[in-house]
């Protein structure tokens, strides 16, 4: 097997004329999502870990307070989608670089895909179906403002 490394800036062979160049869009996505994630993640870290008592103040009531406003719901869900897809696509690059056995590679890529889909769906549902006064919550754990059932 001979691997030919083409000269830089050699035009790509257009074997897939008219089809979507997914690799190119993945490359663009890594950069576009990266810029947005800087704002989203630094804002997230600042509000949760730097302001006030930081990590010591994070509990159920703190999160309930944040998700009482659509602002933080949307912030977190957008961050979840962007980061999960960015991270999974980055891991795909790394798997393609190191997993030389085609079977192992295939299994790892499928695992990355499944993990991404499951966690994006789970996280999105958690944020949008969250109810601080859910009737599923045991009475002795309910927040003080919740109606007593």
């Amino acid at each position, binding site marked *: 097997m001979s691997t030919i490394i083409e000269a*830089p800036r050699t035009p790509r062979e257009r074997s897939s004329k008219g089809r979507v160049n997914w690799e190119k869009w993945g490359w663009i996505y890594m950069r576009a999502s990266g810029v947005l994630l800087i704002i989203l993640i630094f804002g997230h*870290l600042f509000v949760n870990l730097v302001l006030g008592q930081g990590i*010591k103040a994070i509990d159920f009531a703190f999160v309930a307070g944040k998700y009482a406003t659509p602002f933080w719901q949307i912030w977190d869900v957008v961050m979840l989608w962007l980061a999960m897809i960015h991270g999974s696509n980055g*891991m795909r690059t790394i798997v393609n670089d190191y997993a030389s056995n085609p079977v192992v590679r295939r299994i790892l890529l499928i695992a990355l895909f499944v993990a991404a889909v499951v966690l994006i769906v789970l996280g999105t549902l958690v944020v949008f179906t969250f109810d601080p006064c859910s009737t599923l919550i045991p009475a002795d754990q309910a927040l003080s403002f919740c109606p007593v059932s």
Partner: protein
Amino acid sequence: MAIEEASTLTTARSSSKRPAGTLYRGNTGMWSWVLHRITGVAIYFFLLVHVLDTAMIRVSPGAYDAVMSTYKNPIMGLGETALVIAIMFHAFNGLRIILIDFWSKGAKYQRLMFWIVIALWVIGTAGFAPIHLANVFSEGH
């Protein structure tokens, strides 16, 4: 290729006078890539866990507070500090990668930008770590 254009394959016209490999082999170009890769993987695995621990708010206040109490333990606090430091490197170096790709002088200044990344990283760490460690190691909650 236009003469002005800086190639990603040579640092001959880089802002540094020191001879080096290429943008990616040896020296800052390679180490920034190694660090970017390692931090990316670390953040990815934390994100998997973090979505699951946050999902506990949908179970019950007790379940969420229990999982959060593990994050308030000092050993975990050191881990969180390391993770935020890793994110800062990945974020700043990510911007450097984007500038190398899209800014016409990006490849030429990649080495200078690497040191700017390191400087921002040190400043960010100096800003974050004391605050977080003080919260983690303070008494009570």
